[in-house]
C-alpha cells in the first residue's frame, strides 16, 4: 500500500490536531465531571430539604382547606338535612365554593345516625369505597394529625376534623386529604415548586414505591457520536430521606441525573468535531503547499537527471528555495563531472588498446602471411635446389655405377648411395609437403585435404574418417589457410577428442565456401575470450586468426563431440 506525499502530510497534521483536541477534550471532560459530581451531591441534599419543606407547606394548605370546610355552617346545614347531593356540591361542587380544593377526597360521618358520606371524583380511584369500613379503618389507623391509610391497593394521606352545629355541639366528623399512591401530579408539583434539579422522585412506604414521577431515561436522545466516544455519562445521585412526622415509615426517594456533564460532553464533542474540521482544513492546506513545493523540486530533479543522461553537455543544477535539494543538485553535479572525467580517460585507454590490438593483429596476419610465403619459398627452394642436387647426385652415382665393373665391390657402395639419395629425397619431399603442399597448386584444395598425413594417422589409430569434399573455388590465397585449419583440427581430434569417427565436408554455395569438421569425441567448452591454454591452445588460436585473416566466420559447437564450421565468403 502506497500513499502520496500529500496524503501522508495530511494524515500527519490531522492526527496531530485531532490528538491534541481529543486529549484536551477528554481531560476537560473528566475533570469537570468530577467537579459536577460533587456539586450534584450538594444540590441533591438541598433539594431534599426543599422538598420536605414543600411537602409540609402542601399539607398545611390542604389542612386549611379542610379546616375551613369543617367550620363552614353551610356544611353543617347540608349535613343535618342529610342530602348527599347537597353535601357533595358543597364539598366538591363547582359553584358552591371558592376554595382551591387541594384535597381530593372527603369522608363525612354524621354522629347522630352514623350516616357516612364518601365524597370524591368518580374518576379518582382510592380503593374500596365502602364509607363505613373506610371510616372504621381510619379510626383504627389514627396515630397522629396526618395519617397514612392503606385502602386496598391505594395509600391515602388524611386528617380528621370535627363538625359542630351552631351550639358548638359536635355533630359530625370530616376526614379528608389526598390520595398518596399513584399521585404523579403531587410529586411533580413538589419537585417543580422547589425548583429542584431532580429527575425522579418517589414516595415510599416501608421501602416500597407507591408513586413515582420523573424521567427514567434522560439521555434517550443521545447522539450516536457521543455514544461511540463514551460521552453519554450522567451523574446519577440517589438519596432517601424519611418525611418528618412519619418516622421511617414514609420516605421520599430522590434521584438526580445531572445532564450538565452530558451537555459539557456534547459541547466538547462539538469542539472536537469542529477542531477536527479546522485541522482538516489546515492539514489540507499544509499538505497542498508542502507537497506542491516538494513535487516541484522532485520534478525538477527528475528532469535534470534525464538531461544528464540524454544531453551531451547538460546544464548545471539551478538553485531553488529548498537547501536540501540544492545540496543534492551540487552533489549530483560533482558526481557527474567525476564520471565524465573517468569516462574520457577510459575512452582514451580503450582507443589505445584497440589500436594496439589492431596493430598486433596486423602484425600477426603479416606473420601468418609471411610464414606461408616463407614456407612456400622454402619448399620451392628445397624442391628446386636440394631436389636438383639430389637428382644430380643420383645421376652422378648412376654414371659412376656404369663405370665400375660389375664385380667391383664399389658397386655395392653406389647402390647404397642411391638408396640414401632416394631416402633423402623422400624426406625432403615430405618436408616440402609439410611446408607447402604442392597439391594445392596443382590439384586444388579437395585433393590436398585428402593428402594430409594426419588422416593416415587417424585411420591407423582406429578412427573412422569420412570425407565429403567438393571441388571449390576459393578466394586467392585462402586455400592454404583452409588447408591449415583442417590440418590443425585433425591434429586436435587425434590428440584430444577421444573420438571414434571424424567427418570433413567441404562444399560451396552461391555466396560462400563452407568447411565443416565434426567428431564424436568428448568435446570441450569453447571459450573464445579465454587465454590460449587448456582446451583453447595455440592451435585453436591459429584457427581463429586464420579465419579472421580470411574474413571467414568461425563457429565451434561442442555437443556430442565438436563441430567446427568455417564459412568463407566468396
Amino acid at each position, binding site marked *: 500500500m502506497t500513499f502520496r506525499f500529500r496524503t501522508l502530510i495530511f494524515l500527519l497534521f490531522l492526527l496531530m490536531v485531532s490528538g491534541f483536541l481529543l486529549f484536551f477534550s477528554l481531560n476537560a471532560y473528566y475533570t469537570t465531571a468530577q467537579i459536577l459530581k460533587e456539586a450534584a451531591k450538594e444540590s441533591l441534599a438541598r433539594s431534599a430539604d426543599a422538598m420536605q419543606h414543600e411537602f409540609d407547606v402542601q399539607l398545611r394548605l390542604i389542612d386549611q382547606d379542610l379546616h375551613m370546610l369543617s367550620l363552614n355552617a353551610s356544611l353543617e346545614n347540608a349535613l343535618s338535612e342529610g342530602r348527599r347531593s347537597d353535601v357533595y356540591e358543597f364539598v366538591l361542587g363547582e359553584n358552591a365554593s371558592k376554595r382551591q380544593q387541594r384535597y381530593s377526597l372527603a369522608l363525612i360521618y354524621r354522629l347522630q345516625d352514623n350516616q357516612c358520606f364518601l365524597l370524591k*371524583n368518580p374518576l379518582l380511584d382510592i380503593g374500596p369505597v365502602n364509607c363505613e369500613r373506610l371510616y372504621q379503618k381510619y379510626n383504627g389507623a389514627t396515630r397522629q394529625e396526618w395519617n397514612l391509610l392503606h385502602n386496598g391497593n391505594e395509600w391515602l394521606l388524611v386528617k380528621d376534623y370535627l363538625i359542630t352545629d351552631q351550639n358548638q355541639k359536635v355533630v359530625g366528623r370530616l376526614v379528608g386529604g389526598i390520595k398518596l399512591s*399513584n399521585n404523579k401530579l403531587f410529586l411533580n408539583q413538589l419537585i417543580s415548586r422547589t425548583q429542584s434539579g431532580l429527575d425522579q422522585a418517589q414516595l415510599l412506604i416501608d421501602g416500597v414505591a407507591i408513586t413515582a414521577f420523573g424521567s427514567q431515561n434522560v439521555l434517550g436522545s443521545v447522539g450516536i457520536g457521543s455514544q461511540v466516544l463514551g460521552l453519554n455519562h450522567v451523574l446519577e445521585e440517589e438519596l432517601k430521606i424519611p418525611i418528618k412526622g412519619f418516622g421511617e415509615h414514609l420516605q421520599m426517594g430522590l434521584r438526580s441525573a445531572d445532564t450538565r456533564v452530558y451537555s459539557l460532553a456534547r459541547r466538547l464533542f462539538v469542539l472536537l468535531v469542529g477542531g477536527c474540521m479546522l485541522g482538516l482544513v489546515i492539514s489540507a492546506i499544509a499538505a497542498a503547499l508542502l507537497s506542491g513545493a516538494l513535487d516541484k523540486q522532485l520534478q525538477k530533479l527528475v528532469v535534470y537527471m534525464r538531461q544528464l543522461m540524454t544531453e551531451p553537455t547538460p546544464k548545471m543544477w539551478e538553485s531553488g528555495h529548498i537547501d536540501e535539494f540544492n545540496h543534492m543538485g551540487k552533489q549530483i553535479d560533482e558526481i557527474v563531472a567525476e564520471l565524465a572525467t573517468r569516462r574520457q580517460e577510459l575512452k582514451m585507454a580503450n582507443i589505445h588498446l584497440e589500436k594496439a590490438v589492431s596493430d598486433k593483429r596486423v602484425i600477426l596476419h603479416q606473420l601468418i602471411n609471411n610464414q606461408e610465403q616463407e614456407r612456400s619459398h622454402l619448399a620451392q627452394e628445397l624442391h628446386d635446389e636440394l631436389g636438383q642436387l639430389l637428382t644430380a647426385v643420383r645421376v652422378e652415382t648412376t654414371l659412376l655405377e656404369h663405370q665400375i665393373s660389375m664385380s667391383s665391390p664399389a658397386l655395392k657402395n653406389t647402390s647404397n648411395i642411391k638408396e640414401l639419395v632416394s631416402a633423402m629425397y623422400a624426406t625432403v619431399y615430405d618436408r616440402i609437403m609439410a611446408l607447402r603442399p604442392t597439391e594445392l597448386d596443382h590439384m586444388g584444395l579437395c585433393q590436398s585435404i585428402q593428402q594430409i598425413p594426419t588422416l593416415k594417422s587417424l585411420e591407423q589409430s582406429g578412427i573412422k574418417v569420412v570425407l565429403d569434399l567438393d571441388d571449390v573455388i576459393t578466394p586467392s590465397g585462402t586455400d592454404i589457410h583452409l588447408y591449415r585449419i583442417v590440418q590443425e583440427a585433425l591434429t586436435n581430434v587425434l590428440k584430444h577428442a577421444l573420438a571414434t569417427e571424424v567427418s570433413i565436408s567441404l562444399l560451396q554455395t552461391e555466396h560462400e565456401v563452407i568447411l565443416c569438421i565434426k567428431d564424436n569425441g568428448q568435446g570441450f567448452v569453447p571459450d573464445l575470450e579465454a587465454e590460449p591454454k587448456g582446451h583453447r591452445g595455440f592451435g585453436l588460436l591459429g584457427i581463429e586468426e586464420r579465419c579472421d585473416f580470411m574474413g571467414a566466420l568461425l563457429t565451434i559447437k561442442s555437443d556430442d563431440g565438436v563441430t567446427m564450421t568455417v564459412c568463407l565468403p566468396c
Partner: protein
Amino acid sequence: MSTWISRLVNGRLFVAFVGLLLWVVVHDRAFALDDDKLKQLVNQVAKPIEFKQKMPVKIAAVYPGFQSSDYWQRSIRSLTGRLEAIELDYHLDVRFSSPSDGLALQVRQIQSVLSKHPDYLILTINSLQQQRIVELLLEREKPKIIIQNLTKPIDDWFALQPLLYVGFDHMTGALALADYFKDNFPAGTPYGLLFWNKGAVSDQRGLTFERAVSGFHDLKISYFTHASREVAKQQTLEMVHAYPEIRYIYVCATDVALGAIDALKEIGRKDIAVNGWGGGQAELTAFAEGDLGVVLMRMNDQNGVAIAEAIKLDIQKKPVPLVFSGDFSLLHEGTNPEMLGRLMSKAFIYSGY
C-alpha cells in the same frame, strides 16, 4: 485490496471525512420539530401516512358542543376530514354536553369513553373543577390528553403536561378586537361587557379586552351570562336600560352575541355595535345581515387539522409541540364578499360552508 485502499485514502479520504463530520454535527438536530413546523404541517396539503398502521387509533372527545357556536362541531368535522385525508385509520367517540350542564355529566361521559380505552382523549378546561378532572386523567399513562380551546399551558402542572394544547389564543383575539374598537370609537366611549360563564374563557377574552381599552373607553357595566343566549338577552336589556348611552357591547362568545342582538333588535337600538367572537356560521350570518359590526373569525378547521397532525406525529414517536394556536382574521365593514369567501374557504376547508 491494498490498491483499493490506497485509492480510497489518496482520492476520497478528504471528501469522506468531511461528510462524516458534517453528518455527526447535524445528526442530532436534523429532524427536530418546532411549533412553526407543526403550523407548516397544518397549512400544507395533507400527506398520507407513510407507515403501516397495526390497528385503528382510538380517539375520544368530550366537548361542550351544544352551543350556538358551531366551533365544536366544526372541530370534529375538520378532525375527521384531516384524518381521512392523511389516510389514518381511526375510531372516533364523541360526547357532547352543554356548557351549562353540570360537571357530573362530563364526568360520566369521560367515564364512558374511558371504558373503551381510547388512545387519545380531547377535552376542554374552563373551570377549576374541569382542571381537577384533567389532573386525574394526566396521572394515567393512557389515554394521552389533548386540551382544546386553551392555548396557555397550566403552570400548576409543571412537567406533567398533556400531549397538546390546541385552539385559538383568547387573549390574542381579545386584543385584536380591542384594537378595532379603539380605532373605530373615540376616546371616552361608554360600553358594556358581557362575559360568557365564569371561567378561564371569560377571563382571557373579557378581562384582556377590558384591560386593553381601559383608560380609553369607559366601561359602564358588565355581566356573566352563564353561556346562555337568553340570559345574555335579558342582561343586555338591563344594561341598555341602565346605561342607554353605551355605544357598543363587547361580548365574549357566540351565544352571548346572539342574545345581545336579540335584545337590541327588540328595543330598536341598532346604533349600539356588537362584536362576534369566533366567526362560526351563526355569526357570519349575523354579520352578513348587518347585525354584527365586527367579527373575530377563527380559521376554525386548523383546530382539527392540528390535532390530526399531532396524533400522526405522536404515533410515529416524533416530538409534538406543546401548544398550537390557530390564526384569526377580523371581519368588519371593509371586508368585501370576495375576501370573506377566501377566508371562509380557508377557515372551513374540511367542515364546509
